[in-house]
């Protein structure tokens, strides 16, 4: 039941508007700061309105090496995108195949496999970071995209999500497909994948953000600036030991770093909500 009362309407709207202001203020400050010169940011009062630079700072960080990082923001964004996409696509691919095997095939130790995958939920990168580093280093994958992506690619959460979805697919659908002459691959491609479209979209959003926000792992295995991700670069920029923090470039880079996740969410949000709420059946 929904309440419709005037007082309640006004209160809730006021509350919502306040929350929006609270959440949006830092972003606004960043946008404003990114349009100022460094000197105008160090006048003592944080500015609340745009400065003289316009898009100049953005163009500068995209084309010229930022601070002492030795690389420009374009490179950083490309690196982050490759890692986030690699992780998202990889996780989804592996999870789909694993869940497919667990749900639709009868093989010995099927449940054992499922639980083995499931308990990896208790082993995120942070827990297994030393051995993982050793393995990746041993394989010579330090400072490479493979090294960035591969150790993060297995996902119990995604496997579990797909498993739960596959369990709701009526078994007759598989039987009908078998009678219609579809083998396992065809069934996966023609029936299951189109049906899990919304799930895939939802997972893609979550996993892209997960990949994009990775900090510890890239920090550990990338030493060359060619493989540095944008999230790490932000932290680096803030620790310029003796210099003033170049807030105008930091905010410009931070805003640029926010863009791809925002774009992904805006583009996929329709599917995202659908995927979490219901399935196309």
């Amino acid at each position, binding site marked *: 039941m929904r309440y419709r009362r005037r007082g309640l309407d006004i209160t809730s709207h006021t509350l919502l508007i306040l929350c929006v202001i609270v959440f949006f203020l830092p972003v606004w400050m960043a946008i404003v700061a990114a349009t100022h010169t460094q000197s105008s940011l160090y006048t003592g009062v944080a500015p609340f309105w745009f400065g003289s630079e316009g898009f100049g700072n953005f163009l500068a960080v995209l084309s010229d090496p930022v601070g002492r990082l030795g690389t420009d923001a374009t490179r950083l964004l490309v690196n982050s995108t490759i890692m986030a996409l690699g992780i998202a696509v990889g996780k989804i691919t592996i999870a789909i195949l694993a869940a497919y095997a667990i749900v639709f095939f009868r093989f010995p130790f099927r449940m054992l496999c499922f639980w083995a995958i499931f308990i990896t939920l208790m082993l995120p990168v942070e827990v297994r970071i030393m051995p993982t580093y050793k393995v990746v280093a041993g394989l010579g994958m330090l400072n490479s995209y493979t090294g960035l992506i591969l150790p993060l690619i297995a996902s119990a959460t995604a496997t579990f999500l797909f498993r739960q979805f596959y369990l709701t697919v009526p078994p007759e*659908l598989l*039987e009908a497909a078998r009678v219609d002459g579809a083998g396992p691959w065809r069934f996966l491609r023609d029936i299951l994948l189109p049906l899990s479209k919304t799930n895939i979209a939802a997972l893609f959003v979550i996993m892209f953000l997960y990949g994009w926000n990775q900090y510890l792992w890239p920090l550990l295995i990338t030493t060359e600036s060619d493989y540095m991700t944008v999230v790490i670069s932000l932290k680096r920029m803030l620790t310029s030991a003796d210099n003033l923090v170049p807030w105008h470039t930091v905010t410009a880079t931070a805003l640029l770093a926010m863009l791809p996740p925002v774009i992904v969410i805006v583009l996929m949000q329709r599917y995202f909500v659908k995927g979490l709420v219901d399935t196309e059946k």
Partner: protein
Amino acid sequence: MATLRLDGLKKTYPNGFVALHGLDLEIADGELLVVVGPSGCGKSTLLRMLAGLEDITAGDLYIGEARVNPLEPADRDIAMVFQNYALYPHMSVAGNMEYALKNRGVPKEARRRKVEETASLIGLQDLLDRRPRQLSGGQRQRVAMGRAIVREPQVFLFDEPLSNLDAKLRVQMRLEIRRLQKRLGVTSVYVTHDQVEAMTLADRLIVMNEGRIEQLGSPMTLYDQPASTFVAGFIGSPAMNFLSAEASGRTLSLPCGNQLHAPVDAHGHVTLGIRPEHLVPVEESDDALAVQVELVEPLGADTLAYVQLDGQAEPLVVRFDGARRLEEGDRLWLAPDLERLHLFDPEQGQRLTTTEAITTP
């Protein structure tokens, strides 16, 4: 088109449960065989074995001349209509229908022609672009049929295809299935638990019970000469009335004191079966069965009455003409149609025929 031959077909599940106890059966080319039975009698297992969705534990299955035991469902040249239709939800009607052809590598143009041809045969031509979600139950059922027909299989398998439809649509689709099957002349096996569907559709009918064929024959044979109390109770609606009686030669003594002339020789305890439609109301007399009406169910054309007979725990069901007005508590006299009494062995349930005499004292 093909015959279907089952040679000692047996199914044992890994947990040791025997679903089918070695079935021998031959289904003629173009015949529509209906398999009917209560749930858990093995009828669906049988159908799924024919389709290749369940492994065959023992015995051989032939479609035409070929032994198909090791073949995948797709290679058996069969088509199956599922109870819940199992349409692919993300494909259009046309997509659903052509999927099998696509997997066989039929070229696009030929596929389209075949789908359109089939669609017009079953009245789907205007719905080809719709998704299953946008269709009514009856239309989905049609699509499921179309998907089976479009492949021109050797054998149709129907797994309770009408049980998800409402009563009116069910009658309509029943007729349609019958007409299509006759027209296409495809050998068909039809599984149902609905005895009306079974009676109306079947060329021949199998009643199954606990993984065995209880009786095989034309619908009217099963109605007129049920081989056991199980078949007698299953075929015909409302079900046959069973009374216990004492037989001595051709004379049957009922617990209520009446005596009837038996159709066969028997001695000792017997089960007497009388169908509701074979109890006729008569004038009061000593020979007639005196009963009291307990409950009346007017159906329009007929009126069913549940009546109490002395010495009988369960009330008997009697079918009266719909014009007859009955009240609860009425006293009536009924005479059974002596030509159509059925006698069964009270323990095994088998039908007692003239040649057999019962030995129990």
